[in-house]
Structure formats: structure tokens, C-alpha cells
């Protein structure tokens, strides 16, 4: 892994046509801007990870039936606790 330091306002290039800009540095977060061609997908890695986990859990859940029942009960409870407005 390449490791280097950047200050707010600075940027770096990945290949010829992707530029990553450090816009703001907060206490626990950095705000990042990415300039890239449309066809390049940019995904937050946690979304990819979550999708994979959701797919894996549904497959590996040895007791899918029970997992679904638990979910259905939780949903019913939720709707009872937070009455739904008619729209």
C-alpha cells in the first residue's frame, strides 16, 4: 500500500484521469472529492461490504425460516410502536 500525506486543498491523481481532492479535514472525517470519467464507478467500500454480507448471511443463515420469522415479528412490533400515517 502506498502511504503519503496530503493537506486540505491538495489532490493526487490515480492513473491519467482520476483526481482525488482532499477538500476538508475534520476531527474524525475527511471530505473528499473525486473527479473521474462517468464510466468509472466510485463506491463507498462499506456499501460493497454490506451488500456482500447481506448476500452471504441469507445463504449461510442455517435457519432462514427463523431469521425471517424474527424479522417479520420485529417489523410488526415496529409498526405497532410507530403507527403509520396514512398517505
Amino acid at each position, binding site marked *: 500500500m502506498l502511504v503519503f500525506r496530503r493537506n486540505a486543498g491538495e489532490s493526487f491523481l490515480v492513473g491519467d484521469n482520476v483526481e482525488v481532492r482532499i477538500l476538508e479535514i475534520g476531527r474524525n472525517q475527511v471530505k473528499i472529492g473525486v473527479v473521474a470519467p462517468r464510466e468509472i464507478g466510485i463506491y*463507498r467500500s462499506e456499501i460493497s461490504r454490506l*451488500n*456482500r454480507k447481506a*448476500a452471504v448471511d441469507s445463504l449461510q443463515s442455517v435457519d432462514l425460516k427463523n431469521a*425471517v420469522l424474527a*424479522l417479520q415479528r420485529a417489523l410488526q412490533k415496529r409498526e405497532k410502536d410507530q403507527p403509520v400515517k396514512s398517505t
Partner: protein
Amino acid sequence: MVEAQPLPSGVLRFPEGLPGFENLTQFVLLQDEDLVPLAFLASLVEPRVCLPVLPVRRLDTDYDLRLDEDDRRVLHLTGEGDLLCLAIVTLGDGAAPPTANLLAPIVVNLSNWTAKQVIQIHSSYSPALEIA
């Protein structure tokens, strides 16, 4: 009780794939009346990829979905459009509770069955809302 919206029964096309499964662009929604309101978003080419989904409105009736220009372009959406908004559910393993991703719902344009996972950058929605 939120009125159930019928789910599309044909092939959903994800032009950009699904994050984590970028090469998969064709999915179907599998439904079983015993599992309602849960459905499964299953890849047509990779049967191991099967994600449980719930209509977002079942979790948050006031859900504030926003689409930017790029989302609308990918979905071929003009005007308001007829949309379906689904949250991906992680069922958990018994010890961990089921959670739903409200930060990045799957939005389906019901007029052409094109779909995209849309990150709600403006929001503070949780990627792992505990359903309990």
C-alpha cells in the same frame, strides 16, 4: 399497516451492477407469500448472490429519497416517475439483529425496470438500521 406495493416480476437491469457485485447486472425479485414483506434480489447469472430486501416504506414511512442527475440518467427517469425503493437487509446470525441499509436503497424505475443502488449522501440514514 402500509399498503403493499406489488413487486416487479421480470428481470431488473442494473446498468452499473451492484456495489460488491459490479459485474452482475441482471436480477429478479423472488417472493414467497410466507416471507412477505421480505423479498430476495437474486442474480440471474450467479445464483449464490441473493440479497434479502424490504420496501423502505415498511421501515420509514417518511423516507426522503433523493435522486441526483446521474441517478436519473442511469434509471432513464424523466419527471417524477413510478419508483420502487427497497432496502437491503442483513438477516444476522441469530446473535446479531437483522439490519437494513437505509443509506443506500435500491431504486427501481417501474416503467422500464432499470435499477440502481443510490447512496443518500445528503442524509444521515443508517447503513445498518437495527430492525427490532
